[in-house]
């Protein structure tokens, strides 16, 4: 098949629908290796979009390539937990064996090695993606073997199967993970109640969003239900946010691996309540390996009359489509996610209007977290009174935590809301704990002395990440890792976040090189204050949180790096001469300038 025929076939499969551009680009790239200028032109013509728009989407996402990136693309997950497990040395060893610089494609076009944001395997790292397939538990031996397989051009599909095994590591079950529902049970209960009464149950259960913000699910569904569709394609939509990109979070991966039915059923219940016929599950690109299993779970549900027309022999109609993301943390923000679902760069929209009235294709849309939707099944099956008995007054039910870092048993822990940080630390076997980063880089850093605080919306709200750092860890390096993460993930739309995240990253790097001074600390605070108020969305608003927290709680980790406690010039005189030294081959004392601060 020629490239043109192949592109035609892909575009045709997606009904020449521009809203499906993300899937068109991914499937085309899976076959052609990259998205060449002529490929983008062909796709633009086939979906009748301006070419610049197609290119704009293609070069927004980390996992799309508008330049050839090699037949093997190895991406090392670079979360702080991967770092703590030694990914830096392993990646260096891999590059050395392959005679390769990180980020560069080998001369023969065979391979490239680079880093990527957290791939959600923190409990079984260091992790890599090879041609977007997840591989866990990298070791020096595995690096050696992998280099051999790449050199001999063994197809990734034929690599040792155990490399691709991903464990659930469920350590503690509570009401959700220990559920005894069979597929269809919760949905049947919801259908029996009818949409109004089902909505009332959700409201009475006081269910709140598990993505971290804690918005009332009942209120969201009600507003969406009451919103009228817009224009000739009026409809309502349910979107499941499975773009689990917050570093350190991996509970949605486990829910989708072992409880996919519960998630799909929750989407169906949401569909019943808001009056939607279609649901979309937005799966992060890092979880590409789950796609086939999820598709087959959907097929099973269709065969069992749990999806499609006349669900369980009623007149309720609902079906679910899976959309894959392509490496963009920002798509976890609900309006950016909707943009991405529509085939565009994941750029948060101006709000209001909110998605509940103007969401996917400008129609009323409820966007809910994977865990929220799963929890709605428990309410449908067991009722609000039972559900609201669990947890606290303001945070009913349970929360699944993704525990990783310095502990004996990392993995998935489900607790009723209200559990203390200390309890979690005890259960996971974290001795000597210095700090816990809760809810990822955009969350909060909890230090010793605060361990009696509780996981609950009224105290510490969280999307689920729980990264443990023991006394040996350098909290400055933790914050610096997060600063790099935000600079990489800023969408670039608004000035404060686009430029600010990179300025912050550079300041942190400067302090790490021991060229910082108190002036730079003041600059960090100044940028924090600006970005927090002026940014377009939550990414920019929270990007400095980890720095602000660690500066307040672990200031010595910064201060011992400062070159002097007063003034330090931004310009390094001696470093500026390094090129001249290289050119003249000199490195004697006379070829060096003493910096003022050292003088």
């Amino acid at each position, binding site marked *: 098949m020629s490239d043109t025929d192949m592109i035609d076939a892909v575009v045709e499969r997606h009904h020449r629908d521009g809203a499906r551009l993300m899937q068109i680009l991914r499937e085309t790239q899976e076959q052609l290796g990259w998205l060449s200028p002529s490929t983008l032109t062909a796709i633009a013509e086939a979906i009748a979009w301006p070419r610049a728009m197609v290119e704009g989407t293609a070069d927004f996402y980390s996992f799309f390539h508008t330049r050839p990136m090699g037949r093997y693309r190895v991406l090392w997950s670079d979360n702080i937990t991967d770092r703590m497990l030694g990914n830096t040395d392993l990646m260096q060893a891999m590059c050395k064996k392959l005679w390769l610089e990180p980020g560069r494609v080998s001369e023969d076009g065979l391979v490239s090695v680079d880093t990527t944001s957290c791939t959600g395997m923190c409990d079984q790292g260091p992790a890599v993606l090879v041609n977007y397939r997840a591989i866990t538990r990298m070791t020096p031996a595995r690096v050696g073997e992998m280099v051999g397989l790449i050199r001999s051009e063994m197809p990734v599909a034929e690599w040792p199967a155990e490399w691709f095994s991903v464990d659930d590591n469920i350590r503690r079950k509570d009401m959700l993970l220990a559920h005894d529902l069979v597929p269809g049970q919760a949905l049947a209960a919801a259908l029996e109640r009818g949409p109004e009464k089902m909505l009332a149950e959700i409201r009475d259960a006081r269910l709140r969003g598990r993505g971290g913000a804690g918005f009332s699910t009942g209120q969201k569904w009600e507003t969406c239900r009451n919103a009228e569709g817009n224009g000739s394609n009026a409809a309502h939509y349910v979107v499941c946010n499975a773009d689990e990109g917050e570093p350190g979070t991996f509970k949605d991966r486990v829910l989708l691996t072992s409880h996919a039915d519960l998630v799909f059923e929750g989407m169906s219940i949401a569909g019943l309540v808001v009056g939607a016929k279609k649901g979309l599950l937005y799966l992060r690109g890092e979880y590409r390996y789950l796609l086939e299993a999820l598709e087959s779970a959907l097929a099973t549900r269709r065969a069992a009359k749990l999806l499609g027309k006349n669900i369980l022999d009623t007149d309720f109609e609902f079906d679910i489509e899976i959309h894959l993301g392509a490496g963009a943390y920002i798509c976890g923000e609900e309006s950016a996610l909707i943009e991405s679902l529509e085939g565009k*760069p994941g750029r948060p929209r101006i709000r209001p209007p909110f998605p509940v009235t103007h969401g996917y294709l400008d129609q009323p849309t409820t966007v809910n977290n994977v865990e929220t939707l799963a929890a709605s099944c428990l309410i449908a099956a067991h009722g609000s009174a039972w559900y609201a008995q669990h947890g606290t007054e303001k945070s009913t039910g349970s929360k699944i935590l993704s525990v990783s870092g310095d502990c004996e048993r990392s993995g998935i822990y489900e607790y009723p809301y209200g559990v203390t940080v200390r309890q979690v630390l005890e259960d996971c076997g974290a001795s000597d704990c210095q700090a816990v980063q809760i809810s990822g880089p955009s969350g909060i850093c909890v230090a010793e002395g605060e361990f009696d605080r509780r996981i609950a919306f009224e105290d510490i709200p969280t999307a689920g990440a729980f990264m443990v750092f023991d006394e040996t860890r350098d909290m400055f390096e933790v914050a610096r890792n997060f600063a790099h993460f935000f600079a990489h993930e800023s969408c670039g739309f608004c*000035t404060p976040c686009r430029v600010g995240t*990179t300025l912050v990253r550079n300041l942190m790097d400067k302090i790490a090189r021991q060229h910082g001074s108190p002036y730079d600390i003041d600059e960090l605070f100044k940028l924090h204050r600006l970005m927090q108020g002026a940014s377009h969305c939550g990414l920019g608003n929270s990007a400095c949180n980890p720095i602000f927290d660690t500066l307040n709680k672990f200031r010595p980790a910064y201060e011992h790096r400062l070159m002097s406690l007063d003034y330090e010039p931004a310009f390094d005189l001696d470093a500026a001469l390094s090129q001249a030294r290289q050119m003249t081959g000199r490195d004697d004392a006379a070829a060096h300038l003493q910096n003022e601060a050292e003088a």
Partner: protein
Amino acid sequence: MKTSNSEVSVQANAREARVKADRPAETKANNIFQLDGEDIPFRPGQTIMQAATHHGTYIPHLCWHPDFSAHGSCKLCTVKVNGRFGSSCTIAAQPGLDVENRTAELDDKRRTLLQMLFVEGNHFCPSCEKSGNCALQATAYELNMMSPHFDMFYPDRPVDASHPDILLDFNRCIMCALCVAASRDVDGKNIFYMGGRGLLGRRVHISSESGKLADTDFAVTDRAASICPVGVILPKRKGFAVPIGQRTYDLAPISKQVRDTTP
């Protein structure tokens, strides 16, 4: 003095009551909000920026233009609305809003935003044809920006001189996307589109396989050809027709030239 949450809310309620007492009839005829203490009338549906502009009051901005829907990206128009930060180009005007605009706090933030825009691109005002007519430069003067403050990034941004009548110098781009809006909404050509991600990735894409403007149907008469607030989109063979010193913002500061082109 420390105040508890409940005290704060009591104070807020009292303030609200006072505001209501001052203006008892909040009818349509009373569509007024406060901008730095000044009464600004508005029509329902207008944003704070639209109403202020119509009234002739300057709120610093770069990516907003009265002819186009708000983009909301430059954040220069950040104001405080009832104590909360927000973009005045996207927030709807409502009766009784208390909006802070030209306070020291907000102008400080704006100055930092301007410095960010200056260091992320390559801006050399003395050699730029747009000098004196440039909204970025004029706004920097308005806000007393004395230096770029941060280290320059010196990004590598190629110039596109392929088109017979137009030069594109992306070194000066501030990502306002006004060219995107003009080409899409007025010219109906969709020649420009914002793409890429992050500081170094974000850029304007041109709708041709070569990425060159010459390979599009762009014309010097397009609205997009004259919309750029900085010196990216420039006509060729026409330089310094108006001498420096007699240009738009040489004559009066940008804050004194608030023009509303909408009816």
